Every structure is written in C-alpha cells, then in structure tokens.
C-alpha cells in the first residue's frame, strides 16, 4: 500500500471527505439562495419603478395628449441610465424613445416581456451586442403604445458576480478542507503509526516497549496511557511467570537429578536384591516429594487464578483455628513446644474453608518447624506456638505466633515468594511453598498475609475481609 493510499484509507480522511461534502453542499445552497433572491429583488424593484413611470406618463398623456407625452418621453430618453422608453403610433411608428431593434410583435402584447433590444444611439454599430431588458407595453387611449423598461445588464452582472463568488468560495472550501483533512490525517496517522511500530516491537518479544504519549490528553493519549498500564501489568505477570518457571525448574530439577543419579548408581553398583530394593524405595520416596511440590504449585496456581472463588461459603474461622490447632498439637508436643489455641469468640467469614484451613495449617507447620530448631535459648521466650482467631473491624485475623528465630525484616517480602527459603532453612524439609500458598489464599479472599515480629519470634497473620472477596466483575 502506498503512503498516499494509506492516507486515503484512514478514518480521519474519510471523515474529512464527508464533512467537506456536507459543507460544500450547504455553501452551494446558501449562495444559490442568495443569488436567486437578489435577482428576484432587483426584478421587483424594476417592475415597481416601471409601473410608477407608466402611471406618471399616462397621466401626462391624459393631461396633455400625445404631444406632451412625446416631449416628456423624449426628455427622459435622453438622460443617461438604464431606463428605456418608446412611444409608437398604432402602426408601430416610433414617435419618441431610446429603443430600437425590438423583435417583431413585442409591442402587440400589452404587459410584461423580457426582450432583446438595441439602444437607439448604438443602432448603427452592427458589432454592438444586443441588450436584455424587462419592459412593459401599455396601450394608451387613441391607439398609441407606450413602452417603459429597464436594462437587465446590471441585474445579470450582479447575479453573475454572486454566482462567481459562490463557485470560488466552494472551490476554496474544498481545497482548504482537503488540505486540512490531509494535514490532520497525517498527524493522526503518524501517531497511530508510532503506536503500531511500538506494538510490533512488543510482539517481537520486547515487553519493555511503551506506546508514545503526546501529552495533549486527547483520546489517543488516553488510549495509549491505558494500553501502557496494561503492558505494565503484562510485563509484571510475565516477569513473575519467568521467575516462577526458573524456580520450578530449579526446585524440580534438583530432586529429579538426585533421583536419576541414585538410579544410575544402583544400576552400576547394586549387587543383590536388597540393594536394588533400597534404590527403588528411595526412588518412590523422591517421586512422592516431587508430587507434593507439584500439588502445592497447582494449588497456588488455582488460588491465584481465582477459580476457587466459586467454592465459598460462610463459616467460623475460630472453629478452623481450633481444628488446625488440634491437628498440630501432638506434633508440637513431640517437638517440645506447647501449642495453644485462643479462639473463643466466633469469627464468621465468607471464604473457601478448605483453602483457609490449609493456609493456617501451613503457618502452624512453619512455626513449629522453626521454633523447634531454636534451643529455647532466646531469653524469656516461652516455648510455645499460639494460634488465635480474632475479629478486627470488618476483618477477621488468624494469627500464629512462635518463639522461634523469626524472619529478618528485609526478608519478609521475599519469603512469601514461591520456593524462596532462607539460607538457614535449606536444611529443613519442606517445599518452600507453604508461605506462598498462604499468601495466595489470602489474596484470593481479598485479604493479605502479614509477617511481623513477635519479639522474639515470628507472628504470621492471615487477615481476611469478613464479607469475602469483593467481586471485581460487574
């Protein structure tokens, strides 16, 4: 497509054409109306004057007979101007006046006629053009005929001037309109082309590209700004996805490598059945771990995609706190920790019971795991994990506090990310997905996971709006 062809196909240009046509027609109509009316007005003026003169002249005739009429007409005819006079006898013989070369029969019809004529003083010059005139023929008593008229050249000239002005102005409207249209179209086209170019860059895979914003605040700017916000979001999501993929690759590849190495080693070195058996058993164990990690990832993905929103009901969060506490109490006890539940007042909330249970279970699991690693040497710290369900305004809080090493403030955002495990915890079993899942579940419900300092220890809080997540979709 040529540049010009592209220009002509734009919406702006088509709109320009439509406007131009409408304006052109309007101007033509206006000027035509003006020209015709001017002409009509002049004609009316002519007839009025001619009528008045005829009345005057017939009065002269009535008072002074043909002789007086001839004298008056003769005098008037000699004045310069566009007035035309002729007095003839019954036979058509001119007695006085300034008109000649009328078409035959003009004088026979009394009344108004548009006719051609020659002025008497030009009659001999053959090259003189014929003039147009509007005349009235009046029968005088006694067979005389009186013709009074006005030359129409002036009227026609004015009419032609108006028509010419109209044609010119329409031509100018069209030329200027087209030029303006092309100018505007090219401006818009340039901006759209710039946007298209950016879009192509983005499509080629460079997500960092942003649409140009002219800063005029017009509709194109608004569109560009919104698209930029969208691109920002997509880039963030893609970045997140890439990080997750990298982490998944890392955390799934490590056990897979281990699994493979063990199998290879067994093939190489195992000498008897029991050694093969041991290798197989460890393979199964390792794959079980992989399945767990995988399930946790799916669960997080599901929570983050918002699918689980369909599955929500109202329940008592205090009951969940008691149930989860009860589930973990023997484990805590075994690790030398006291697990206490403080959830006596009901904390009704709308949400996915199963997911919230799991999120809380993960927090308790986490606290038990890390609190039990300290040797109880944190000064004054009770060796206990406390699970609480609280009402706070229009939110409910599920908190787990422990006396463990806690999480340094600078790491608190990071640990919520998938697979992130602080260095000192690499030795602990676990997928590193527990806190991520809890955070994803909290977000699903329109709430948040907060990690705070319990001084000493960690305080993890799942804060959820009582009324469940606000539905974004209308």
């Amino acid at each position, binding site marked *: 497509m040529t540049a010009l062809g592209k220009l002509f196909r734009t919406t702006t240009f088509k709109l320009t054409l439509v406007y131009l046509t409408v304006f052109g027609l309007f101007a033509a109509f206006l000027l035509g109306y003006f020209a015709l009316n001017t002409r009509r007005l002049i004609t009316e003026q002519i007839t009025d004057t001619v009528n008045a003169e005829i009345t005057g002249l017939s009065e002269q005739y009535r008072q002074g007979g043909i002789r007086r009429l001839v004298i008056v007409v003769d005098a008037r005819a000699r004045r310069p101007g566009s007035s035309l006079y002729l007095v003839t006898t019954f036979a058509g013989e001119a007695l006085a006046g300034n008109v000649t070369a009328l078409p035959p029969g003009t004088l026979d019809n009394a009344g108004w006629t548009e006719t051609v004529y020659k002025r008497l003083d030009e009659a001999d010059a053959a090259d003189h053009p014929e003039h147009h005139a509007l005349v009235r023929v009046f029968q005088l008593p006694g067979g005389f005929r009186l013709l009074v008229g006005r030359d129409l050249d002036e009227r026609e000239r004015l009419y032609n001037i108006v028509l010419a002005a109209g044609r010119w102005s329409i031509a100018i409207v069209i030329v200027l309109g087209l030029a303006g249209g092309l100018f505007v179209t090219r401006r818009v086209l340039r901006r759209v082309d710039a946007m298209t170019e950016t879009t192509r860059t983005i499509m080629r895979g460079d997500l960092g590209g942003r649409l140009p914003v002219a800063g005029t605040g017009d509709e194109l700017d608004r569109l560009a700004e919104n698209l930029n916000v969208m691109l920002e979001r997509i880039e963030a999501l893609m970045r997140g996805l890439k990080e997750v993929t990298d982490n998944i690759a890392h955390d799934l590849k490590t056990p897979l490598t281990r699994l493979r190495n063990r199998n290879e080693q067994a093939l190489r070195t195992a000498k008897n059945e029991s050694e093969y058996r041991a290798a197989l*058993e460890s393979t199964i164990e390792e794959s079980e771990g992989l399945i767990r990690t995988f399930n946790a990832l799916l669960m997080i993905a599901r929570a983050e995609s918002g699918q689980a929103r369909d599955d929500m009901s109202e329940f008592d969060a205090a009951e969940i706190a008691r149930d989860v506490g009860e*589930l973990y109490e023997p484990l805590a006890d075994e690790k030398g920790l006291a697990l206490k539940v403080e959830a006596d007042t009901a904390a009704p909330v709308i949400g996915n019971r*199963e997911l919230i249970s799991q999120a809380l279970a993960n927090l308790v699991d986490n606290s038990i795991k890390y609190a039990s690693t300290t040797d109880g040497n944190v000064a004054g710290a009770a060796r206990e994990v406390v699970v609480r369900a609280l009402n706070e305004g229009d939110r409910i809080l599920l908190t787990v506090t422990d006396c463990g090493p806690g999480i340094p403030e600078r790491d608190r955002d990071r640990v919520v990310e998938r697979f992130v495990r602080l260095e000192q915890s690499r030795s602990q079993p676990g997928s590193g997905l527990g806190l991520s899942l809890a955070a994803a579940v909290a977000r699903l419900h329109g709430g948040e996971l907060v990690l705070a300092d319990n001084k000493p220890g960690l305080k993890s809080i799942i804060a959820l709006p009582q009324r469940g997540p606000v539905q974004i979709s209308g």
Partner: protein
Amino acid sequence: MPTFADISGQRPFSRVAEAQPDRVTMRLLVIEDDRDAADYLVKAFREVGHVADSAADGDDGLTMAAEGQYDVLIVDRMLPKRDGLSLIGALRGKGIGTPALILSALGQVDDRVKGLRAGGDDYLSKPYSFSELLARVEVLARRRVGRSEETVLRVGDLELDRLSHQVRRKDEEISLQPREFRLLEYLMQHAGQVVTRTMLLENVWDYHFDPQTNVIDVHISRLRSKIDKGFSQPLLHTIRGAGYMIRDGAR
C-alpha cells in the same frame, strides 16, 4: 491368596498382602483408557489376590459394569466415548450401586466434590500409589457388608462403645480425646484393613489437603501409647509404605 513365593519379595505389593492374611478376594473392574496404566493395575490387583478385568473406554466399561458382578469399579475420569462421571451416572440410573472409585488427573477439591456428587464413592487423584488405591478399594468393598451399624466395635480385647463413647481394653477404661476417639473408631470400623494417612485425614479430620509434615503419624503414636502401652499384644500396626491397621494379632 498370596503364596509364600509372593511374600519373599518377588512382587512389589506383597508387603501389603502379607499384612492381611484374612484378605477376601474381590472382583474388580478397571475402566481406564491408558493401556499401560490399566495393565499395571490389573496385574497388581491380581498379585495381591483379587480378580480384576479392564475396559478401555466408557461404553465398554458401562456394559461390563452393568453385566458383570463386580465388587468395586475403578473409573478413570476422562475416557473415550463416555466420560467417567456420566458412566457412573448411567449405572446409578439403572439402579446398579456397585461402589465406584474415580481416578482423576485433575485432583482439585471442587473436582472431587463433583465426582462424589455424580455418584462416585471415593476419589483419588493421579499420580497415586498403588497401596493407597488398594486400601481405598478394599474399604469400599467391605463397606457394603459394613460394620458402621454396630454400636460396639471389638478388636481382640479392645472394645469401643459408640453410644457411651467409652473405650476399654481388658476391662480397663481408656480415656481418649474426642478426636482420638474418632480416629480409633475409624480404624476399628475398618479393622483388618489397611487405612492410609490420607484416608484418615479425609475421614477423621475432613481435610483434603496434604499437611507438609506428617501430623497423622504423631496422632497415631499418641493413640498407640494409650491403647497398646502396657499390653503384650499390640493391636495398632504400622504397615510400611502404606498406612496403619488395627488387627487382633493373636488370631
């Protein structure tokens, strides 16, 4: 019945079989379109002493399930010609109540709920371990004969009264927490059968997720210390690689 040769370790599932000498032979139908998976299951079920057939698509599965006398159906959720849920629905529509266990690669909580609502009796998500599947299938088969109606459950000299919530062993009263009582009740309802950790989590705690640490083991060891401690004959057994079983060892 497994022979001595089976137990010697030639076959992978012998350990489970070994733990249940009183296993009743079941007739099972595996409806699964993946040839390998179906063959594996049929072989494994036969190894532990059951009779197993397989069907490769939904229509065949429905015909076989309707005509044959099966104790339990193992139904893959996604099948050619007719999917697993509609197959179970059609069976139930015909008034056939053979227990059905749904196998699915989906495995989300709401999928499980959908499966059970469609008439399935249990739900297991892929990938599963055979011991888990076997334990669930056996529980399903036995449920029809059912001990759930009895008010007093007995295993050896252990006695659990479901009405008065009392537990005694050799006339000695044992005091249990409410959850411990439910745990023991579930184990005793399925006495002589392997019960997996997931089954306990689902049926005693009503949780369908996987706690990161194996909390169930700790609950079991607590329960064990209450019912077995001080008695020469232990009743609560750990079946390695599978789960737990309560059984009168003296028999």
